């Protein structure tokens, strides 16, 4: 099928299979390897991207669901060589260890802040409930999202 959609605000046209996963399109066809594959079954959240500003699993999304839609990946957050506030807060709050969950975690956090610019710690934990981190106890991650929300002051 011919697929027309948007990735990180750029129009992309691809000839692909309808049952090709968004994850494979991003990683293999577009070279956007920041999106990670951790479980291939929608349980770990490492492959999280935004689809029309909502967090979804790219491993459970097929080309047949993408026509005309907007995908945002971790690579789309950095603007003009400057990290997004969320990315910077993850770095500064020491919320990153092995990093394999990080990009998915940041995308889930991004989706949260787009909908709810002033989340409570409980709301942050719920928003990240589908993103597993094995290195940490989520303490710094929750702190990083909280601080990013404060720094953004409601802007997203």
């Amino acid at each position: 099928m011919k697929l027309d959609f948007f990735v990180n605000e750029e129009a992309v046209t691809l000839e692909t299979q309808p049952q090709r996963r968004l994850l494979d399109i991003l990683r293999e066809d577009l070279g956007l390897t920041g999106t990670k594959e951790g479980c291939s079954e929608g349980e770990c959240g490492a492959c999280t991207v935004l689809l029309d500003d909502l967090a979804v699993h790219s491993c459970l999304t097929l080309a047949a669901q993408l026509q005309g839609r907007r995908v945002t990946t971790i690579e789309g957050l950095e603007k003009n060589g400057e990290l997004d506030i969320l990315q910077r807060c993850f770095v500064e709050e020491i919320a990153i260890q092995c990093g394999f969950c990080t990009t998915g975690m940041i995308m889930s956090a991004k989706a949260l802040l787009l909908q709810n610019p002033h989340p409570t710690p409980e709301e942050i934990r719920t928003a990240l409930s589908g993103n597993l981190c094995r290195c940490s106890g989520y303490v710094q991650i929750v702190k990083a999202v909280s601080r990013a929300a404060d720094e953004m002051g409601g802007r997203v």
Partner: protein
Amino acid sequence: MSTCYIPKTVEELGGALGHLTEDSLILAGGTDLVLHLRAEHLQPDVLLSLCGVPQLRIIEITSEQASIGAMATMAEIHKAMDGLPDLQALADAAGGVGSPQIRNKGTIGGNAANASAAADLPPVLWLLNAQAEIMGPGGVRRTISVQELADGHQGNTLALGEVVLRFLIDRTAFTGWRSAFVKLGHRSQVTISRIGMAMALLQAADGTIQDARVVAGAIKPVPFPLPAAEAILRGKRPDPGLAVELGETFKGNTRRVYKENAAKGVFQDTLLRFQP
């Protein structure tokens, strides 16, 4: 190689349904289908994606009726229903499915048509006597009860080329009712139900239960009503202390000792949702 249909209107969908064969697949949210597709290395002759029909996503709530498009996502349903007393159980169930990522893609149509025993929406749809409006090849429509949608073996009764368009709930039958859904899993969030409890109560001004409906999920292949529990509730207030007695009504309904014992905990958590 598969042919992919992505209809943009209900009319186009009706046309596309005519092309489906036994080897075809219908793609809704994809949260279950993709796993199945990959595990079985399926090569469907036709892949019909429902995500291009905006009409299937519409949630319309009037004082008489709730109409929920089959492609409405869990997140959308939770948002639309949360705070409406009679429909609260649907909000609870949709809001507790999987993770945020799953709720952003998983649809009510997929959840009901896929008919997993552990699915969270069917017990609530049964509780609220929902109807499913179905369309077949050429746009032929029929409406059945959700009970008729399930085949009893974790599958559905849809014929080849049929899809659910929307679910309808007659709100006039539940005027003054409140409902709630509580699930028990292995963790507090992002968990598959081991017990799903859907309850609706009609209470007098002093809290006395005039009428009650209770449907349990994740125990048998299909949800099942618990008339014994309903009888216990009628005429009383929703006192959490009733949970022990209510839990007894589970006996004989499951061979799993754990579920039989844990039922009272789920009953209590459900009753707590009805506190003033």
